[in-house]
């Protein structure tokens, strides 16, 4: 059992927002998904106030050990999510964490208030990787901007408020401290790193959104360094993520100070990756010298 800001988790492995759609997965895998749900909590894809179509394709570019995505946060919008998706997510055998993003403090406030009012929601995660259209500042890239956001929304809910930090900030530790001081319940990191690819034939940007976010094992070392730095600076529980493929990678993030670990991109390669990483982690943690035990999983 793991305790994460009041949530009781059966094990430390959850999913990264936007990397597992439990409703789509239930269509693809049927009811066994509920019997063997791969994560100890389910984090929704980012929900915005109004519906979004997402970016024009192509949306994916494969890298050595990872990918760049420019998905563009497609979603039904708050009303659609609450009416159609949340009741289905409530059937999952694990707590539901709703990830939200707004383009102004007012938008985030509306999202937090509406989601918090729903009993199906165990906790909220704030995606602060986008610019505040009123100030032009990326909410999670600037400590003062983030402090002002949390000052506005923290009083609106008694539920745990997890702040998902962006790695595209000049001083992630300063942002983490600001989140702690402003009443965040936990931090999660890392989100994707900004990246881009050119079409080898035309030389033009490949991705419909021009730039995108890099994820997967290619960012694992960056994630470890940022989790290590943040855990050294704040007392809040941290959800570590970035390139986790095996129990070994999860153990590293836990040793760097993380309370829980999220699996993202690896679920694309193996839909049961969360389950496998949790089992490998348990084996490693149980062995006297965890460092010696490495899963045979090829990369």
């Amino acid at each position, binding site marked *: 059992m793991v305790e994460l800001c009041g949530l009781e988790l059966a094990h430390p492995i959850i999913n990264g927002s936007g990397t597992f759609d439990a409703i789509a997965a239930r269509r693809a895998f049927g009811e066994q998904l509920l019997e063997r749900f791969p994560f100890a909590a389910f984090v929704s894809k980012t929900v915005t106030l109004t519906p979004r179509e*997402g970016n024009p394709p192509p949306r*994916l570019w494969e890298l050595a050990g990872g990918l760049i995505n420019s*998905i563009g946060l497609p979603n039904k919008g708050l009303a659609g999510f609450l009416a159609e998706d949340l009741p289905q997510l409530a059937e999952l055998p694990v707590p539901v964490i709703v990830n939200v993003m707004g383009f102004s403090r007012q938008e985030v406030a509306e999202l937090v208030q509406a989601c918090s009012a729903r009993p199906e929601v165990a906790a909220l995660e704030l995606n602060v990787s986008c610019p505040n259209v009123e100030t032009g500042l990326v909410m999670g890239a600037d400590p003062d901007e983030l402090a002002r956001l949390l000052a506005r929304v923290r009083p609106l809910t008694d539920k745990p408020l997890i702040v998902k930090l962006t790695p595209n900030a000049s001083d992630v530790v300063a942002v983490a401290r600001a989140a702690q001081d402003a009443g965040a319940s936990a931090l999660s990191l890392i989100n994707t790193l900004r990246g881009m690819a050119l079409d080898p034939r035309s030389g033009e940007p490949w991705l419909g959104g021009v730039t995108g976010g890099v994820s997967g094992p290619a960012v694992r070392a960056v994630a470890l360094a940022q989790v290590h730095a943040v855990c050294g600076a704040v007392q809040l529980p941290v959800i570590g993520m970035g390139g986790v493929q095996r129990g070994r990678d999860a153990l590293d993030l836990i040793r760097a100070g993380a309370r829980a670990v999220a699996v993202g991109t690896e679920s694309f390669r193996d839909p049961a990756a969360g389950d496998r990483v949790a089992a490998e982690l348990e084996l490693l943690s149980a062995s006297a010298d965890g460092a010696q035990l490495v899963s045979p999983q090829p990369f």
Partner: protein
Amino acid sequence: MTAPLGRRGARITARERYGAYVVLRCADADGPTPAAGQFYMLSCAAGWGGGEGERPFLPRAFSVLRACPASAPLELEFLVEDVGPGTRRLSELLPGEELLLTGPFGAGFRPPHRGRRPLLVGGGVGLAPLAIWQDQLGPDTTALLGFRDAMHAPGAELMSAPRVATEDGSAGHRGLVTELLAAELEADPQAEVYACGPPAMLEAIRALCAELELPAQLALESGMACGFGACFGCVVPTREGYVRLCLEGPVLDAHLLETAAVAGAGH
């Protein structure tokens, strides 16, 4: 047909060359029998990565070419054309080596409307989903196949009595398979077209069927990372907005599409 949760191993039991194509046969002991038009995400248990650009990293989407449910365990066949690091590595697999797979995923072909005669049209490696569909519809089902050249034309051996077009005239009609289709539709306006192939071919077929007001089901391609709706990477534009091709497709009704020329698809 829903897929087992998680990635599983499948041993290669046979590998055969048909010109530029490789057919891989594998034993899928734990898998269900797929429907025609469904697909799997494939990777190799060993040596996945380290090719061109240090790729592949993600699994690759493959239509099931044929399923042999009579064999125990279930055997699946896939048709592979080497167009990049992933398909290269897969086409090198030898009997005894292990494939990793997830699936079957997606929505396959639907039976023809009442009174309509199914007509299968494939371009190159796009014949794959049509072969299993012809197995189910019956060997007399008309199939029109287009290939680039003499290297690719042996793919025609994978279907029953196809009419063939090659761009270089090395086999069958010299020209495009869409020319065979146009002639066929003129003779039989009661057809329902099932097609899979490169984006330009599918778009020509979509436009032709729209003009003749014929129903058509198109098996499309797009870049996929997961195959089960997790990444939102595979969307194609439809008249109802973007849809995830791995969930709503890969077979889509042509009238849903303004164009079948999907950005980033093909090679």
